[in-house]
Structure formats: structure tokens, C-alpha cells
């Protein structure tokens, strides 16, 4: 896990890139890669690549990046892990390829030489990388299907820039800070900025599962190579028996966990009281890992409540013989860390606090890599949305189609107690009739009709126009999928998980120089599990997950009501006197507005 960046003056009228800018962007990402730094320039000085390294695989200096191919034609700067690199390497060696390092980075160079852009289909892992071809004079970018690793780009028509973080691009000083209305409005709608937008018009995310080529003609349109929605659309041709599904899941999960343990340093685990991380611990043990250290967060506010994860997490740790560490976080520490949290936050998000502290705890424990159970709820139907969204769509499909009824319902409810205290209730008829709309009701922070009260109406109109809110959400569902479970799994994976959970995990863990790996967010796993997802209704998915380790999880964990991976931030922030505590979701909403003010203060263009 690392920080990568580059500057390419593709337009012949442009000046050569400034070395100071390359280094300023690179070194803004110091925490992403504290172990080593590198830079590379082509002979003409038109392209520079930067790299900051967190050494995980092949700790030697040979594996320093940017790394050149033996022939000197290619240069790569890479952030992530390729979990199937041993197999790829064996295959490549059989074809006569000679390796100089034991790193996964070198595999990328050989694969690109052999297969060009099609190389991405061979990769299992989390990745964002750039490869410069010094003969074709073109730059190739790629980002993994789930979007676990970030990659941001900026082009002004003369010069193309990329980096692992938005703030790193800004730190270079040459990227425009003109605001992107779609990013600002998108943040208020979702609580995180939906890709490809950022708060700044010039900066965009390379969408997950896409590649992009930049050559003398400038950036070409990003091309999709493997979309999560497509993989979720592949239903099994025949219904599978429970035993078949259990076996398939056990094998696929076992392989994924094993693959994710690949490292030349110790791999730990973030352990909660839930099924996902507990099952991972059992599977780590099954994969043969002897020493396993687990980290669990504890909050004094939760002592004696069902939100307290410590007792069950300890039980699971004991069952699988892990060295368990409980890290207690209190309000004072939260308030102390808040400035650092805001400084590290790459784009505004209303979440990520839990990830911040668990990564901090892992770092204090001396860990460099930890597994996380993130993604289990999306893959195996763990969220209430799997139940609610299809129900709402069934309920509101007909009323939503009646002209004028949505407006009428909203107007009437505005004057009712329910409508006043729960703004989303006012949007039920308008949005509840479609999957995209119902998903907005489920995950949305502010609904579109509320935005005029908190943002400039012209910005809202422009932002919604550019954002194309519902069509964009709609496009993340598998085309033609009839299964409601597959639809919601796709919605959660390609929206909430991608724009919120994975991004938050990235910036919070990287701020502590911790690499978080997510065995439940894995393309190979998805390909195995995807066809059975339509059958994983109710709690079945999680039950099968609990049974995946050779020693199943204790019943107490499986039967525990879902509480989420909570942090008492609400109560810590609730003490602010201006909070309207009667309003549902008020904490998140106020936090969003506070955050936006913080980001606006940092960038003058957003303040206006």
C-alpha cells in the first residue's frame, strides 16, 4: 500500500512539468508510504512519476518504485496488492520471463508487456497503478473493480496529473480549485462525494473497474474492464441446494482469506462482535496462520449496552486462539484527534471515525497490515436495505406513477409531525417506487427537495443536473437482473461501499500507515458467490458465512442483533447547543454541514 502520483505534459504547447510540484504532491502522501520514496523522469522531461512506499511484500530496496522493466521501456508506479502474483509469476516464468525481485510490482511490468491493457483481467487484488510506455509515449492507468484503492486524475488540456489523493493533487499547487457543483451536491445527498466527482471540477476519480490511456491526444475516455454490477448479474441457471452453497462459499472464502494473507510482514485483524470479522478469524486459522493479533475498539459510553462489542469479540478471539487487544476510545481522545482527522480526510465524509481509531490502535500495536470484514453485509445481504428496498418498491410503485400524488403527499406531510421529524417520509411516494429512488431514501442524507434550504439554489440545480442522481444509481444495478437481492447487493457495493466505506478505510488507515485488506471484497470471491446471491435471502448468507470456518462461529455471535460498527460520535457531537435533536438523522446532517464548512475554509473557491 502506497501513494502514487505523476505529471505528464502531453500537449506539445505545454511547459515541462515542474519537479517541485511532483515532489510536493508525492510528499503530501508521506503517511501512505513512510518506508521509501522514488521518482522517475523520462529523458525529455515530459513525464515524471512519483512513489511513496509502505513495504509489505519484498522489503528490499530492489522493489523500490517507480520500477523499470528490464528492457527499460516501461515504468510503473503502483499502489495496492496483487494477491495472485505468485501464480502469475510462475506462469510468466514458464514463458521465459526473468524476474529481478520477489515483488508483485514486477509482475505488472511483465504482464503489460505481454498483454497490454488486457492485463487487468489477470489481476486479483486491490490496485491503482500507472505504467508509462516510453516507446508508445503513452500512460496507462488502472483501478480495481471494487475501487478499493483510490486514483484521482486532473487534466487542464495541457498537462495530465494523477495521485492517490485529492489533497495531494492540490498540494502540487497547479490544479484548479474551481468547485464542482455535482461533487458538492452529491456530498450533501449521500454523505460522501460520489465518484467520479470530487469537490473540484478539474479533479476526477478514475472510476472503479476502469482503465485509462493518456497519450499525445490527452486523456482518452476511461474504459470499463470488470464491473461489479455485471458480476452480480450472473445468476445461477438452477437453484442450488443449501449444502452446495455452503461448500462453495467455504471454498471461495477460504481461498480469498488465504490470498489476502500474502505478506512479508505480520497480518492482523480488526475484530468486532459481528459475523464477518469473526468468520475471517476462523478462516485465518484454517489458512494456517499461527500468530494472529486482533484489535477491537471499546467505548465507555457503550459499557453494559448491546453496542458494546468487547465481550463477544473476546469470546471469538478466545475460540480461535488469537492474541486479543481491546483499545478503549473516549470522547477526550476523539476531540483531541479531531483536527488530525479533518486534516487527513481527503474528501468530506460523514463516516470513518471507527476506521480511524481501529487503524490507530493497529498502528500502536506495531501492525502494518490488517484484515477487515468490510464487504460482508454487501455480499451476503446483511443490511436492512435488502429487506426494506424491495418492500418499499412494491408498496410505492403504483402511487409513484400517479401524476401529482408525490407532490401532494410531500405537501401534506410537511405539515404533519412525521413529515417534520423525518424528512425522508415526505419523499416516500416520490422516490419509493423505484430501486434507485428507494436506495436514495435508505442511504440519502438530504433529499434533493431539501437542498435548497442549505445550499445556493442555483448550485443545487446545476449540481443535480450534472450529477444525474437517479440514472447514475440506476446504472450501478446489474442490467436485466430480476433478483432483488442481487440488485440491492449491487447498489450497496457500487455506491455506499465504494464511495463511503472503502474510501474512508483508505484515508483513515493510510493516515496511520496501515494497510487494510478486505477478503470479502474480492473479485474472485464475487465470481464464485455471485450466482448464488439471488438465493441468499434473509439471514441465510450470514449463517453460511458463520459456518465457513472449520470451527463455526458461536451462536451468540450469529444470533446477535445487527448494531453496525458503531462509534458514539453522535453523543459526542450531540452536546453542541445548536442541534435540533428532534430531527431524525440530525447528527449526520449537522456533521455534513460542519464538514463542508471545514473543507470550504481550506479551499478558497469553495468558500464563495
Amino acid at each position: 500500500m502506497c501513494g502514487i502520483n505523476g505529471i505528464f505534459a502531453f500537449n506539445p504547447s505545454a511547459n515541462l512539468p515542474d519537479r517541485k510540484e511532483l515532489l510536493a504532491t508525492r510528499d503530501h502522501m508521506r503517511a501512505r508510504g513512510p518506508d521509501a520514496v522514488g521518482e522517475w523522469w523520462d529523458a525529455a522531461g515530459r513525464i515524471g512519476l512519483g512513489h511513496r512506499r509502505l513495504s509489505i511484500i519484498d522489503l528490499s530496496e530492489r522493489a523500490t518504485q517507480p520500477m523499470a522493466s528490464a528492457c527499460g521501456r516501461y515504468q510503473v508506479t503502483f499502489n495496492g496488492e496483487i494477491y495472485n502474483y505468485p501464480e502469475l509469476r510462475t506462469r510468466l516464468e514458464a514463458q521465459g520471463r526473468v524476474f529481478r525481485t520477489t515483488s508483485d510490482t514486477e509482475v505488472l511490468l511483465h504482464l503489460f508487456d505481454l498483454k497490454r491493457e488486457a492485463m487487468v483481467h489477470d489481476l486479483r487484488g486491490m490496485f491503482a497503478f500507472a505504467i508509462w510506455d516510453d516507446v508508445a509515449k503513452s500512460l496507462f492507468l488502472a483501478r480495481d473493480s471494487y475501487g478499493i484503492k483510490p486514483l484521482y486524475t486532473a487534466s487542464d488540456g495541457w498537462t495530465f496529473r494523477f495521485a492517490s489523493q485529492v489533497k495531494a493533487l492540490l498540494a502540487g499547487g497547479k490544479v484548479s480549485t474551481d468547485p464542482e457543483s455535482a461533487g458538492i451536491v452529491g456530498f450533501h445527498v449521500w454523505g460522501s462525494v460520489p465518484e467520479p466527482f470530487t469537490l473540484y471540477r478539474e479533479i476526477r476519480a478514475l472510476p472503479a473497474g476502469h482503465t485509462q490511456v493518456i497519450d499525445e491526444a490527452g486523456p482518452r475516455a476511461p474504459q470499463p474492464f470488470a464491473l461489479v454490477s455485471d458480476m452480480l448479474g450472473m445468476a445461477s441457471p438452477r437453484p442450488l441446494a443449501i449444502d452446495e452453497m455452503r461448500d462453495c462459499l467455504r471454498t471461495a472464502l477460504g481461498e480469498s482469506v488465504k490470498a489476502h494473507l500474502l505478506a512479508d510482514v505480520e497480518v492482523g485483524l480488526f475484530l468486532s462482535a459481528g459475523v464477518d470479522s469473526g468468520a475471517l478469524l476462523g478462516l485465518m486459522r484454517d489458512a494456517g496462520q499461527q500468530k494472529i493479533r486482533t484489535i477491537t475498539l471499546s467505548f465507555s459510553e457503550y459499557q453494559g449496552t448491546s453496542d458494546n462489542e468487547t465481550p463477544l469479540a473476546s469470546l471469538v478471539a478466545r475460540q480461535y486462539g488469537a492474541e486479543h487487544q481491546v483499545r478503549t476510545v473516549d470522547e477526550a481522545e476523539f476531540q483531541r484527534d479531531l483536527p488530525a482527522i479533518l486534516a487527513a480526510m481527503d474528501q468530506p465524509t460523514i463516516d470513518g471515525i471507527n476506521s480511524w481509531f481501529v487503524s490507530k490502535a493497529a498502528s500502536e500495536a506495531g501492525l502494518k497490515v490488517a484484515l477487515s470484514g468490510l464487504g460482508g453485509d454487501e455480499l451476503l445481504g446483511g443490511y436492512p436495505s435488502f429487506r426494506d428496498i424491495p418492500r418499499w418498491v412494491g408498496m410505492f410503485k403504483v402511487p409513484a406513477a400517479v401524476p401529482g400524488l408525490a407532490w401532494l403527499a410531500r405537501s401534506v406531510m410537511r405539515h404533519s409531525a412525521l413529515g417534520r421529524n423525518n424528512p425522508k417520509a415526505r419523499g416516500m411516494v416520490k422516490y419509493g417506487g423505484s430501486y434507485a429512488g428507494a436506495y436514495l431514501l435508505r442511504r440519502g442524507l438530504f433529499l434533493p427537495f431539501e437542498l435548497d434550504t442549505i445550499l445556493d439554489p442555483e448550485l443545487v440545480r446545476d449540481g443535480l443536473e450534472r450529477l444525474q442522481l437517479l440514472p447514475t444509481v440506476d446504472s450501478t444495478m446489474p442490467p436485466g437482473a430480476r433478483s432483488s437481492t442481487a440488485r440491492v447487493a449491487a447498489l450497496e457495493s457500487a455506491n455506499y461501499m465504494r464511495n463511503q466505506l472503502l474510501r474512508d478505510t483508505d484515508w483513515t488507515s493510510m493516515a496511520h500507515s496501515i494497510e487494510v485488506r478486505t477478503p470479502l471484497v474480492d473479485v474472485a470471491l464475487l465470481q464464485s458467490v455471485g450466482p448464488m446471491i439471488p438465493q441468499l435471502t434473509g439471514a441465510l448468507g450470514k449463517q453460511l458465512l458463520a459456518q465457513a470456518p472449520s470451527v463455526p462461529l458461536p451462536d451468540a455471535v450469529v444470533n446477535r442483533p445487527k448494531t453496525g460498527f458503531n462509534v458514539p460520535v453522535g453523543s459526542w457531537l450531540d452536546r453542541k447547543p445548536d442541534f435540533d435533536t428532534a430531527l431524525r438523522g440530525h447528527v449526520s446532517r449537522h456533521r455534513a454541514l460542519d464538514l463542508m464548512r471545514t473543507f470550504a475554509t481550506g479551499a478558497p473557491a469553495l468558500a464563495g
Partner: protein
Amino acid sequence: MTDAFGGYGGIAQYNRDFLSAAAGGCFPGPITVLARMANDEVGPLPTGVEQKSPTMNKFAYAARATVLALRQRPKVIYNAHLYHGPLSMRLARLTGAKLVSQLHGTEIWDDVPAGCLAALEASDLVLTVSRDTCARTLAKARIAPEKVAVINNTVGARFTPGDRDAARRKFAVAGEIVILTVARLDGREGYKGHDRVIPLIPKLRGMGVDAVYMIAGEGPDRDRLEALAQSRGVEHHVRFLGKIPVDDLPDLYRAADLFALPSVGEGFGISFVEAMACGTPAIGLGIGGSPDALVDGTLGTCVAPEHFADALIDLIINHPGRPSDLATRTRHHFDYPIFASQIRTQLQKVW
């Protein structure tokens, strides 16, 4: 398009450059030009380019374009002006042609009519003359950033350092330090920035510099500027040259010691590049397209408005003379072969 061969002005010049570049290597078929105007002699056309007789009336123009498009079934329709967008878009849809739109700069600054915006958004490629135009396009139109490219204007071959002494004699300049602006005297007050320069003339003269300010161009702002020169007591040192024939422009640039255009409204600012290609240093503001022409201050001087006066005086007092490699460096960024190769590269993206 409005005009190309036989046309006058910057847009006609750009269109000629574009057509010559497109015909010179990448278009697989012939190029038919339908212009609204051609006031001057059309002259020889590049191989593969045919220009129809002009049609000024816009209804007749639209009808003729439609008939031509249906008959020829073009592969690409080049929409050379924002306001030809709606017609171009309809013809592209009618014939299945790819649509390439061109933006020259300031036409995108103000509100854009919905039809013209729709045409931009429907374009397969939008060519813009500066990074600023590109950014403004992306702010206004809902179009993928990869479809909007920057190809800066190119500088004509006749803009070279040439014989400076002869040029100075031609414009009756002896030992004076000449500051030059070439621009329309636009009615919008302060737009081109002549009134930022005039107050500096008495200041420079007070410092012992025999400075004169030559203003080439005509327009409704002339009376105001003359009055300003008079009020500052430099009416004899501010020379209004009127509209200069195109053929005399290179000598005018050569005669100057510094080209100044502190304009707040340049889509690109080709005159900066023409001056520097003639070997004359240039100064402008970091606003709009000017930073492209001045290459972010590495080719010419590019400053914020509040620093303009000090920067100009500093150039005259502390950096007199003409860098010997300025013309070469200018060509390095804006020479025709670079422009032509970019046109070809971009057009190849479309098919």
C-alpha cells in the same frame, strides 16, 4: 463556418489553419467548406479542400448546408462556431456524421443559448483554443472531459524577427522605448487594458525613460483613451495608429520594445504570440487565455492585475533588450507543425 479562405480576422485565420492541417494528412476524404462570408479573394486552397461560394443569409445558409449534407453524407461535420451549433447538430444527426465543435474563446464566457449548449454536449469532440476555454466549457456543458481538447492557435510563418531597424524606420521610431498594444479598442471599458498602460507612460518618462505607447486598432473606446492620455499629459507620447494592414503587423511588432496587452478578456491572445515570434517581449495578465499564450510566464510575463504596473516598469528599467532566443522558443510552443499534428491527433480520435 463564418469564414475561412477569403475571410478577415482571427477566426478566419484559425479556420484556414484548421482546414490546411486537416487536409494535410488525416482526412480520408475531401473537405467541403460552406462559409457565410468571403470578402477578400479566396486564393489557392489546400489540396482536398473545396470552398463553396459564401451564403450570408442564415436561412439560405441552413438550407444549403442541409442539401449539401444530405447529398454528400459527410463522415464528420465541423461546427466552426458556437452559434452554428444547432444547425451542425441537426445535420450530424440527419447524416450520422461525427460532430466536431470549435470554440475560439470568449463566446463561451457569457450565457450560452440552450441550443448551442446542447450542440456542444452532443459533440464527439470539442476543440478549444486555451485551457481557460476548456475549463469554462466543462463548467457550462455536461460533457465528458476527455471529449474536450486544447489546441492553441498557431502563429503565422511571416511573424519572424526580420529587419528591426527597417521596421522602426517604417513606423518613425528612433531612440524611443516603444510599448505596443495591438487590439480592438473595445467599447467595454477596461476590457483590453489600454487604460492600465497609459498612466505608466508619464511615470516612465518621469524616470528618464523616453517611452512612447503605440496603440494599433480601432474601435469605440478611442475617444475615451485619447482623453485619458491628454489628462495625463502624454498625448504626444501615446500614438493611435488606427487599423494596421495585416501585412504591416510583423514590422509593427518588430518596431516595439515591449508588447503589452493587459486584457481581462482574451480567449487565447494570439497577438502575444505574434509579437514574441517577432522577437518582442510581451506582458499580459494571468486571466482568461493569456496564460496559455504567455506559457504561464515562462515565454512572456504573466502577472496578476495588481502587479501589472510594477512588472511593466521593471521590464523596461531592469530588463531592456530582446532575448535572442525568444522567437525560437515561441515557435517551439506554437509553430504550425505542432498545431497541425495536434489537429490530426485529435481528429483521429473521432473515427
